[in-house]
């Protein structure tokens, strides 16, 4: 208890001497946490969206003519020979027309003068793979296109490819912002602690003569780094939460946001970010102690 009160007293004393550099460091750590967690938040949401889209992904093979019932099993086997699928559905011209009517809703009257059999026969294939295996889906699509009677294969190829590339780009940005978080936290905290130690050189020397233990001298310095990490992570994540709320309130709408059900970082991720920030800032503190504080 006495040790804790001593540490708090020492921290208050250090803050009075070097509050400007401590505030700057806190700001930098918070900003780094915010940048990293912001991209991480987008990345996790995109991953979720990707997984959702993956589950809903279907490849439609348009056929020249309907596959007779006797050959359907063989046709299915040809498909499953290439890859595992969740479901295969044969769509007749009538069913396709009925679907289109349903999709058009109130505007379905545009179809009134059209022949209900103007749409082609098709087969819907729901693969068990998701978007992570984009190359595999492309191969699958090529394979389906080579099946006898297949005219065209459709699965929103261009859109899915772009989405895949965007996720890859996000992954790189998350890694880069993670590196930024590491560099700024470790170096800024290390630098601030160094300034603190330099401003206390005279005092530290006297403390050594008085027999101050390693724990007595190093304790407050370690705690300072730890607290910078804690408050840095807290303010960074709090800012992210407000930013998230703002985005949700201002960008949610029938087109854009309904595609992605935006959600905040799960508790486990928040805890991990806290832990990483604490570890990085404590490491920065430790580096300075090892380098500049010979007890």
């Amino acid at each position, binding site marked *: 208890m006495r040790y804790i009160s001593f540490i708090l007293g020492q921290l208050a004393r250090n803050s009075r001497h070097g509050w400007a550099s401590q505030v700057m460091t806190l700001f930098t750590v918070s900003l780094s946490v915010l940048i990293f967690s912001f991209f991480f938040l987008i990345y996790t949401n995109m991953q979720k969206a990707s997984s959702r889209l993956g589950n809903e992904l279907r490849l439609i093979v348009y056929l020249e003519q309907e596959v007779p019932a006797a050959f359907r099993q063989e046709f299915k086997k040809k498909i499953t020979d290439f890859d595992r699928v969740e479901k295969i559905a044969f769509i007749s011209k009538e069913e396709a027309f009925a679907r289109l009517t349903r999709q058009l809703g109130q505007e379905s009257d545009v179809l009134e003068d059209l022949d209900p059999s103007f749409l082609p026969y098709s087969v819907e294939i729901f693969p068990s793979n998701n978007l992570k295996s984009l190359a595999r889906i492309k191969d699958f699509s090529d394979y389906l296109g080579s099946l006898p009677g297949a005219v065209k294969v459709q699965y929103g190829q261009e859109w899915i490819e772009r989405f895949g590339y965007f996720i890859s780009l996000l992954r790189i940005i998350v890694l880069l912002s993670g590196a930024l978080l590491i560099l700024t936290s470790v170096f800024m905290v290390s630098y601030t602690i160094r300034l603190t130690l330099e401003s206390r050189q*005279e005092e530290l020397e006297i403390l*050594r003569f*008085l027999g101050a*233990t*390693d724990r007595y001298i190093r304790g407050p310095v370690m705690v300072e780094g730890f607290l910078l990490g804690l408050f840095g992570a807290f303010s960074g994540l709090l800012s992210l939460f407000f930013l998230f709320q703002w985005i949700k309130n201002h960008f949610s709408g029938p087109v854009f946001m309904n595609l992605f059900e935006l959600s905040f970082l799960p508790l486990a991720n928040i805890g991990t970010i806290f832990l990483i920030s604490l570890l990085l800032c404590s490491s920065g503190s430790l580096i300075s102690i090892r380098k500049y504080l010979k007890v």
Partner: protein
Amino acid sequence: MTSDTAPPIDTALIDIVKVTKTYPPDIMALDEVSLAVGHGEMIFLTGVSGAGKTTLLKLLCFLESPTMGLIEMDKKDISKLSGHALQKMRQHIGVAYQDFRLLSKQTVYQNIALAMEVRYENPKKIKQRVLELLANLGLADKIHTPTSKLSRGEQQRVSIARACANKPPLILADEPTGNLDPAATSLVMDLFNRLHEEGTTIIIATHDQAIWQKSSHRIVNLENGKLQEIIKVNFDL
């Protein structure tokens, strides 16, 4: 009648055996000095400036190491002390430095309390002890004054108060009255005498004859780094 004599070696708190200290290039500050200081003994280390008094005290408080020879404290070779053992040993030695070594921006109270804080003493106990010391040394009204605002004599007394704060078993005082007037000198010596009576071992390096002439304690004289003589003084002088 004579004062204390050198203690038998088995009761010595400090045992200095043929200690030599040279500074580059070849300045010999101490030359094969041997001295035993008993538990609870008070001795005066005398000699002119440059005789080696400060060097000897620096060796005893681990600020420097001897070039040759052995120093034992409580039968432990102090050259082998390091880390936690050294820190603990330092906590048991109160040192009043000739250059005071005070924190200039901190108050008198904070400077004295620091010696007790490193031992995690109870804040109430620290306050009580600091107030007591300041009263003893005539500095009660300076308690919240930063030490940079004090006169040299006052700074010296703060340094002495800090050395005595923990009631350590050993106090080393380097010219403790060098900047003091007779009244302040008397306060300081009264404090030392009281601590000595309570069993503290005290070594005072001084060239101020006034403080040891009337003393009944052992006086060790250093001259050009050599231990010249051990003078025994009459009690009733």
